[in-house]
């Protein structure tokens, strides 16, 4: 079934992705995202085996890694790819005002 997203839904998704969209783009995405959703919905047609839920396309269990250190990157290499940097830090435009901070 063909789906069309509402204007609000498109704007909400754009807001979450931190991107600006023009009015004409909104119209375009209402259809395009709707089509994507319909495509993905086809997955519901797949039968589940043994009623067991899969979270990955295989059934093996996770192999745990030993807690021992490996090689790390040189800090210079790390920041080399960053468009903006200050000392050893990667610099980005300020996201929130100075007296705020985001935690996990």
């Amino acid at each position, binding site marked *: 079934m063909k789906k069309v997203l509402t204007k609000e839904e498109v704007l909400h998704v754009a807001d*979450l992705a931190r991107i600006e969209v023009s009015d004409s783009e909104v119209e375009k995405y209402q259809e395009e995202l709707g089509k994507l959703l319909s495509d993905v919905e086809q997955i519901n047609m797949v039968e589940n085996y043994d009623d067991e839920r899969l979270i990955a396309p295989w059934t093996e269990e996770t192999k745990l890694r030993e807690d021992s250190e490996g090689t790390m990157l040189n800090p210079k290499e790390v920041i080399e790819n960053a468009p903006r940097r200050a000392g050893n830090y990667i610099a*980005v*435009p*300020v*996201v929130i005002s100075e007296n*705020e901070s985001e935690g*996990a």
Partner: protein
Amino acid sequence: MNNNYIPTIGIEVHVELKTNTKIFSNSKNGYGQMANSLTNVVDLGYPGTLPTLNEKVIELAIKAATVLNCKIRRQMHFDRKNYFYPDNPKNYQITQAETPIGYDGYVEIDLDGEKKKIYIEEMHIEEDTCKSTHKSGKTYLDFNRAGVPLIEIVTKPCISSPLEAKLYLEKLKELLFYTDVSDCKMEEGSMRADANISLRKNESDPLGTKVEIKNIGSISNVKLSLEKEWERQTKMLDNNEYFKEQTRRFDDKKNDTVLMRVKETGNDYRYFPEPDIPFVYITDEMIENAKKKIPMLPDERKKVYIEKNIPEVNAKKLVEHRELSDFLNSLLDKNVDFVVACNLLLGDISAYLNKEEKKLSETTLTKEKFIELVNKVSSKEISSKNVKDILKDVLETELSIKEIISKSGIKNISDDETINKIIDKIIENNQESVKDYKDGKDRAIKYLMGQVMKETKGSVNPEKAMNLLKVKLQSI
């Protein structure tokens, strides 16, 4: 504090786990190093990289779940929490939204002698994000913290006062520190607390509007910020002011909470199972192995110390000093005077460690040497003053106590005959004081005793000498 409204409080705590490496990569888990020096392509979220789960994280999480009396989930997975923010270049944080490793637990706090259970809703594993610092219109990123393993512990909204919140956090910190799950340093961010509080008039009313206070820097500030928030919301409710769910933070300069943001609606993180990490199965063997590594916990230690006649106040102090408590615990199967042992550890030895800014493990004190010292003190072969004199040698040299005593020239004068001879000499040379004593001046005996100590350079058993001196004076 006002009593017009009842507060309902819930606490979320993030604790960094004490592992060598990160949760999903083998780069080092470390603090205070040069920015961006502890990373690899996984931590930086490079395309095509895959997470590999650290077995130590699971072990520590099982230990934590066990001491928090949680049930442990046997089949679990991770989920992606999607959001766009520079602290996480993958644009999702790997966490456990659906199958937290621990659930339905509790921590018991002591509220004026009464026990109260603070119920734990769930405890899940997740990765830390990079540390962002905001300064002069820019945000600076340090990925050393990205991928550091965390557990998040969420209580049920069952805390009824700021004091209870403080007691809960103290207890939680003690438990996680003692089990070596985390070093729990709030000042370094290895333990971080968020609190939420809502007010209502009666227990039967629905819960009021929830306000979250984020990133509070110390346990005492958790209590203080909740008290301030209780006060602030009370004023608003009394004035019939409406407020929305919001996130605030505690400003310790203003000594009050300040608004960070009005809360976004939930459900925006579009969680879904992390397909790169298949199911994790927690086996009986894993649980047993983790449990074996849990040492005697603080409450049990206090109980044991009190049974060994150590006063409660000192038992508490010992538990606050993990290293001293561990050291004393290594003697529990030995026949020593624990009161003397405790006094030495909390007294002269602690004073030395504080002054020298050293750990006990950085001294030359061994279990055997300590037992020898305790025995010498409890048999009164050496006085507490002697201990002060020889302590440096005890803690800084490899010599045995016997060798140190003989080197220091301490004569262990404890036989009556020798002491009496000294007393006779002192009495002969201080006839005036003897007369004063006879005339009822009590101070005179202290002077005479002082002379005895001086003559023997403090190496006489003072209790014994005093008794003998009294007998002698009465016989004159």
